């Protein structure tokens, strides 16, 4: 018996009952996530209890969006990235219900996002995972797991595909 289940957001989940303490995170789940998931714009995965009955309370969620990374066309930029945009995956939003924060659900969610992304990232030649930390305070959370800030004044972090994939035997 597992402790949690991760499911794609659908009508059986109680979106309105989710409160993370951050309005932007709650609002996205309430108003945008379903449409995006149905249309395939981005996928929202929700963490629930495996035996919860609909409407299933949402313990936490994250959304994954394919995104394009476009290198600067500066003449003196070292070679390495092609001129054309290259693919990556964006961990756009992540949130944990306020009532159960502090017990490691965020850690689990991030690990799950990596697990889900790593296969497709490695298999389709995407360069890595981009994360937008919801607040400045959360930057440290992602850095703890290896994500690197790209510029000091931005909340955007990055982790290359090769760092996402667990080397065998580890």
């Amino acid at each position: 018996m597992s402790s949690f289940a991760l499911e794609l957001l659908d009508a059986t989940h109680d979106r309105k009952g989710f409160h993370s303490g951050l309005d932007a995170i709650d609002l996205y789940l309430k108003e945008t996530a379903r449409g995006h998931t149905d249309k395939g714009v981005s996928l929202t995965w929700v963490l629930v209890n495996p035996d919860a009955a609909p409407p299933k309370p949402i313990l936490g969620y994250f959304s994954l969006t394919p995104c394009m990374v476009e290198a600067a066309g500066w003449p003196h930029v070292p070679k390495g990235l092609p001129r054309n945009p290259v693919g990556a995956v964006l961990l756009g939003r992540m949130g944990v219900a306020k009532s159960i924060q502090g017990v490691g659900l965020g850690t689990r969610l991030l690990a799950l996002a990596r697990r889900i992304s790593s296969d497709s990232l490695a298999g389709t030649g995407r360069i890595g995972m981009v994360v937008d930390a919801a607040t400045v305070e959360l930057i440290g959370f992602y850095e703890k797991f290896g994500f690197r800030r790209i510029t000091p004044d931005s909340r955007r972090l990055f982790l290359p595909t090769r760092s996402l994939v667990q080397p065998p035997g580890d």
Partner: protein
Amino acid sequence: MRLQPLIFQGFISKGTTKSVERHFSFRSHFGLISVSFHDEFSGGLVLDLAKRSSGSCVSHRHVIRIFGVKFAPKKIACVDFCANLSRMKESPPKHKGRRGRPRTVEEPVRISPRFPASTAALLEKASALRGLTVTGFILDAARAAAERVVADETRWQLDEDETKAILKLLANPPKPNAAARKAAALAADVVIRS
């Protein structure tokens, strides 16, 4: 071909609209009409109304109401629509011996958001400067904002420093650290159902 002013009230029958963002067609009592919106044309809103199935086009000024939004050409700098008017008649739809109930038409919907007076005045001034109706101005601005949001979400344009930083990371990917391995172990028993 004689041109006649035409008040088009946009009888849109249910189920015939194709709401592809900037191009759609609908059935009116003039027949099937396809409409495409262009922005960024001399700073104004240009409306092309072309009747399908007819090759010849003429330009004229008209009042058009589509989806409850009234496009008043007087106020719009360059409304220009092409339509074969000779075939269009202002008569109401005929039900040629059709039995049963007459086809129901969907009433246009009007939404009227409330703005603070100062904002409304600003909107009016700005739209006048652009030669647009307030509605046209709001639609334009809202669409531009929406497109920007979508682009921001799915496209990351790196500047020079960011490109260097990304390249450095790609050349030297950090190994999963202890915290990442621990997190993976913690989440190992979570079932993924999809």
